[in-house]
């Protein structure tokens, strides 16, 4: 065995600290979780402290003022952020309502059913709206949520300190 003289710095405390930092970051960081939230939207501020634990059973609706005094709603559906119109003028379909019903009631879009068509009463909607938009843009979204019988609607706000 060759004779190696010990020199340089003792790395043991460094490794201890770095390992602690890694564990910290792994616990607090959210990596790879995409809720479809549009970070460009300036959301309103609030003091209330509440966090949603089960983000897996939620749909985030980004609501901003759109053309013709209609809201422009986008959401992450099927892994892709897409626009969900209130009424599609080309087909007459209601993409937002149908999407909410699909999450709420399954593929049959109506109460009852099993497996793929089973109901999801715990389904939650998160509204991420522009703080300066008028209620006229928010109202149709809330009405559509009510039509889809979504009971739990949450308003995404940013924290402010008192």
């Amino acid at each position: 065995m060759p004779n190696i003289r010990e020199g340089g710095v003792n790395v043991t405390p460094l490794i201890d600290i770095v390992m602690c930092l890694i564990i910290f970051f792994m616990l607090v960081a959210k990596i790879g979780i995409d809720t479809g939230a549009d970070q460009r939207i300036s959301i309103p501020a609030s003091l209330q402290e509440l966090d949603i634990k089960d983000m897996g059973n939620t749909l985030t609706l980004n609501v901003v003022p759109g053309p013709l005094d209609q809201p422009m709603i986008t959401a992450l559906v099927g892994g892709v952020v897409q626009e969900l119109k209130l009424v599609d003028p080309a087909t007459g379909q209601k993409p937002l309502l149908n999407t909410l019903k699909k999450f709420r009631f399954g593929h049959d879009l109506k109460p009852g059913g099993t497996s793929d068509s089973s109901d999801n009463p715990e389904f939650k909607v998160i509204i991420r709206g522009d703080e300066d938009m008028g209620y006229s843009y928010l109202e149709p979204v809330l009405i559509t949520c009510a039509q889809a019988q979504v009971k739990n609607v949450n308003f995404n706000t940013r924290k402010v300190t008192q």
Partner: protein
Amino acid sequence: MTNDNIMKLQTSKKVHYDSGPNMTPMVDVVMVILIFLMLAGSFVGSEHFLVSNIPFSQSGAGDVKVPPGFIPDEPLDIRVDSPTPDQFIATAGQIRTGDEKVLTAALTKMRQNMNKAGKTDDQIQVKIGPGKKVKYRFLVQVYEAALNAGFKKIAFATSH
């Protein structure tokens, strides 16, 4: 002990053999993981939510058939107007204010009075009725005031 033997003993004390694993590659990998986590992670804490279990309530009686024995909730209407784009006026009963703290205090009193009159918090339905042009941030303030006042059932009504 001879001089030669003393010499050998001193030399063996100075030389340390590197036993155990080589830590250098591990430190390299760990540092890379640390930098990745620091750059890629988005942290919890900058945003939160105002929770609503009854998001929307249609104004007006409509023609819904009420089941026998059904006791309707005690309504508390809060009308929200925006005389200028940068302010709101919330009106609930005799209260008329554009300040969230004042509104919270007034709504708390109203809730306590309703509790004294025999209505529990679960039997009171707050309906926020905003105008079409009222900004969303003002609605959040009114909503938050109602939550802070202790009401449990808060809904938005159709616009006026």
